[in-house]
């Protein structure tokens, strides 16, 4: 929710003293730069105060806990005018045309003098770089034909002020260190678990955004992330990994030792099953994408193509640019991106935030309603027909903001039970005369190409695939396959959805770096899905028996 000046007065938005110093410097500097011949019309400082604790265990032993505390900062100075500024794309630019953006460190003790000097130096550097780039932008516009999208480079946004109390880390290090060690020791009972790892990252952060429009945000967050992995090498050389990530906002939300042991043991069993599984053949067949796989499928295939900056870039494929108001999915499907949502089905959503990295309040955006494309995810860089931000401008510190996904929610208004969905799958297999279809249960991630110089294709990488036989043979786990396809064809294949929902939490890497995201979806039945052989390693498994299993 956007907090305007009327709703939240300056007193509520002060925050720690060092944040006040940032505000004062931004005001002083922006005032000065607005008077220059090439004026800076927008100055923004973001700071990230991060306390981090990392615990790692493997095979029953731990590394010494690692702790750190940093206050990294990032400055944006826009030179020119909102209609045309230095960030405008330079078309056909050579490699390394732009000097890389960078972050810098602020004193962790809040020292006023050092804070002011650091902001001054970084802003001065950024302003001079921006001045030079604006010269190139103007020349590029003169040399090149007009862009297809003549939208301005920056849009206005209401001032936002919101200051929340800091959160700390509240974790018993000794207890968790022992717990991770005990759970990780379970691997020692399994000869075929060649490597394994459990880590717990506890991060208490405060994201601060102050800018020349008066926006003043102090946004704390605590995150506890458990990552577990087990690895082996199959007889054919494939390096296999089963991976789990558990996200929590408080230590109490983390699993108990018994629950964690169950997760780990289940992973070991899945790894063993994968190791013995046959390798998939390239084919097309009907398939059910279970919730997490369906979620990643939508993140890659739809999510990246509804990010607004791709609609204004003439080098992008712009699959959906001219399809607003048109049906792109079955009428029973809705797609929403809602960063304001904190959890779904009791699971924390990694893509939650209240304000984006341009100081705009996060908004729930109905991207697809009843199968019809309605909207894009926008930052403050406008596109034709979508002149303002809906709070999706995001970045990793040190990168330029672009529009990104937060919590992508795939929903169906007409659903069936999982059993019914399976029956529908079998019916599809038989009606197409195929010997088998697939159930894709879990995935490790995926990627997609959205530009014009590469095929507009996607790849989703499953951990394992279940082959479902038409003749009633038992389901069979297979491995070594990737799901591939192109977006418009893939969406035309969605036939039905389950009444269950699964959540994928992860990090998405794109032009503006890595940002935390989630995607959640029901199981989906697709009439046809193509699989190709996945890449694999080639090493023989270890030549000697696993220690402890020599006999």
């Amino acid at each position, binding site marked *: 929710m956007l907090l305007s000046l009327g709703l939240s007065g300056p007193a509520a938005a002060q925050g720690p003293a060092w944040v006040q110093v940032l505000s004062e*410097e931004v005001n*002083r*500097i922006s005032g*000065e*730069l607005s008077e*220059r011949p090439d004026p800076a019309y927008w100055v923004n400082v973001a700071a990230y105060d991060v306390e981090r604790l990392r615990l790692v*265990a*493997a*095979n*029953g*032993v*731990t*590394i*010494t806990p*690692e*702790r*750190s*505390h*940093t*206050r990294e900062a990032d400055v944006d100075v826009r030179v020119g005018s909102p209609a045309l500024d230095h960030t405008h794309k330079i078309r056909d630019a050579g490699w390394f045309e732009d000097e890389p953006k960078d972050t810098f*460190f*602020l*004193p*962790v*003790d809040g*020292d006023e*003098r*050092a*804070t*002011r*000097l*650091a*902001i*001054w*130096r970084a*802003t*001065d550097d950024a*302003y*001079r770089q921006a001045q030079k780039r604006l010269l190139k932008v103007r020349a590029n516009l003169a040399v090149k034909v007009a862009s297809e999208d003549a939208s301005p480079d920056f849009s206005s946004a209401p001032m936002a002020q919101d200051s929340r109390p800091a959160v700390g880390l509240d974790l018993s290090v000794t207890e968790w260190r022992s717990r991770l060690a005990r759970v990780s020791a379970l691997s*020692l009972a399994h000869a075929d678990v*060649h*490597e394994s790892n459990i880590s717990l990252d506890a991060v208490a952060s405060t994201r601060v955004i102050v800018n020349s429009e008066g926006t003043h945000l102090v946004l704390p967050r605590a995150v506890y992330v458990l990552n577990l992995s087990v690895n082996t090498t199959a007889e054919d050389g494939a390096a296999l990994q089963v991976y789990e990530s558990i996200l929590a906002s408080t230590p109490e939300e983390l699993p108990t030792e018994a629950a964690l042991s169950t997760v780990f043991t289940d992973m070991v069993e899945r790894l063993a099953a994968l190791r013995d599984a046959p390798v998939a053949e390239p084919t097309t067949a009907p398939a059910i994408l279970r919730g997490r796989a369906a979620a990643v499928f939508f993140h890659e295939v739809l999510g990246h193509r509804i990010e607004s900056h791709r609609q204004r870039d003439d080098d992008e494929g712009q699959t959906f640019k001219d399809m607003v108001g048109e049906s792109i999915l079955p009428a029973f499907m809705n797609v929403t991106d809602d960063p304001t949502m904190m959890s779904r089905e009791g699971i924390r959503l990694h893509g939650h935030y209240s304000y984006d990295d341009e100081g705009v309040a996060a908004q729930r955006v109905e991207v697809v309603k009843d199968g019809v494309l309605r909207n894009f995810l926008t930052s403050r860089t406008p596109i034709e027909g979508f002149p303002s931000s809906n709070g999706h401008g995001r970045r990793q510190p040190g990168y330029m903001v672009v529009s990104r996904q937060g919590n992508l929610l795939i929903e169906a208004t007409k659903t069936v039970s999982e059993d019914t969905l399976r029956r529908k799958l079998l019916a599809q297999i038989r009606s197409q005369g195929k010997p088998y279809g697939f159930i894709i249960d879990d995935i490790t991630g995926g990627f997609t190409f959205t530009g014009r110089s590469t095929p507009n294709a996607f790849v989703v990488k499953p951990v394992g695939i279940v082959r479902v036989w038409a003749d009633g043979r038992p389901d069979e786990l297979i491995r070594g396959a990737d799901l591939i396809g192109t977006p418009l064809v893939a969406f035309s294949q969605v036939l039905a959805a389950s009444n269950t929902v699964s959540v994928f939490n992860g990090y998405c890497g794109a032009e503006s770096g890595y940002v935390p995201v989630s995607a959640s979806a029901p199981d989906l039945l697709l009439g046809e899905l193509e699989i190709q052989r996945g890449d694999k390693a080639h*090493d*023989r498994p*270890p*030549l*000697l028996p*696993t*220690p*402890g299993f*020599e006999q």
Partner: protein
Amino acid sequence: MISLWLMGLAWAGEPDALETAIHTEVQRALEGLALPDQPRAHHISVMVGDAQTSEVWAADGALTMSDSSQPRFMRVDVRVGTPEVDSGNFQAAFGRRQGMVLRGLGREDQDLALRRDVWMALDQAYKGATETYAAKQAARRGRDLRYTADFAPAAPVQSDRPAPVESDSADLKLKVLALSDAVAGEPGLEVNQVGGYAGGYHSFLYDTAGTRLWQDTSELVIRATVQAKAGDGSTLFNHRSWVAKDMAGLPPTDDMVAELQDAAGWLRQLQAVAPEAEYLGPVLFAPEASAELFRQLLQPQICGTPPMESAPENASQDARPIPTSRIGRRLLPSGWRVIDDSQQNPELMGAMTHDYEGVATRAVTVIEDGVLRDVLMSRTPRADRTKSTGHARGMAADRFEAMPTQVNIAPRRPRSWTRLKRQALSMAKSAGLSHVLIVKRLSPPSMEENIEFSVTGDEPMAGLTTPTEVVKLHADGREEPVRGLRFVGADRRTLRDIVAAGRTNSPVQMLDVPGGSDRFGWGWFEGLGVSWSVPAVLVDEMELHSRAGGEARVITRPE
């Protein structure tokens, strides 16, 4: 070589869990690691290092980062083939795995957990070594070259496990903050950055020849930069570094503060000086700068580990040349002597009894009467030197190569500083110059701002890092700051152009790495301890060009 390994059973003291776990897995590897029609391992070494590190950064008088960690690393080296021809000393294709594996380890000594780590590392290293061996054989095929053996023999050594060294970090934060604060309010200075690092290392080396060697080292490094803008927008840098084994080896904080204030004061003087266009003439190196001069130019000449072989270049199909030894050739003026003796001062950086390959470090007179007589060696032989002198060291996953420990350079007929200056002025006059340049400080490679230098390696276009404190000495004794000059074309031949020298000064402690193009790519706190005791020197003729330029600030500095 099981027979050699059996000697290891007689090592000193009772084996602990770490030794036992390594021993068990290396024995299994020797007996069982084999692939059809491929050579087996002839030498395996496992090095485990327990580190205790603290790092502190401050800028403008305030703390920006403070971190401490206790990592444990294991390095496994597997050499397949025979000592005459094995998988070592060969640079396989980019990205190709080799016979060395570096991985992190858990801190607790639990037998089965340790054995799993050693087992996996040995398996990976053996497979990598096998493919590297084949690549080396393929690269040699059809080339009519004489090759020396790949691995020199060395007697196994054993030692008891000493008590771990604690890193000396208690006062690190205070010192770093005191330094940063001391120049934080200086008018005209844009920024200061001070970094401190304290590290204690406790390492265990195990090999199949019977070596069971525990060694401890420590280091304490504080570096500081100060930065300002000249009137024309040029960015001006200066720096100070202090390197020692522990806090007791550093000067008192007040002295360090005074040194850094001097560095800042120097920048203020430079701000009022126009950049110098060029200089060609005699150059006098004051003691601090002279230590950098010798470290940068002489180190590659006295280290004998030959470069790694590699596959023929695609274009020429020529082998990478292996330089012939310069032994017997002049490197310094006649009468000069250079000795590397790791035991000159046990309290200083570079002091060691054994190197990273477990070989006892011996004193080596590398230069006698100005002529290169011997070189420092690792266990990688060369045509004219087949035994290690115990100088092998290296960073992380790099090959261990010979590098100096504690170097002492003694000139013939040392002169006083006053006489050196007088001689320098006389030479300048003969060259038609009204002044002579005195270089008081050169950037350490790890703090070098000149990227061109960093990329080009140990014999680059510049040849020396940027001189940060240079003065013109006039005939009337007046010294005038000079800014914006950098060396051009300095190389080992510069050392032969030394015409006079002062007395050998107190050792300058530094961090360094073995020679090669990546010698200048390391960070402020990375490197291995060395000490150089050198005289001030006067060089007959050197060339320096202007590299000034930059942009002035446009935003008013905050009050």
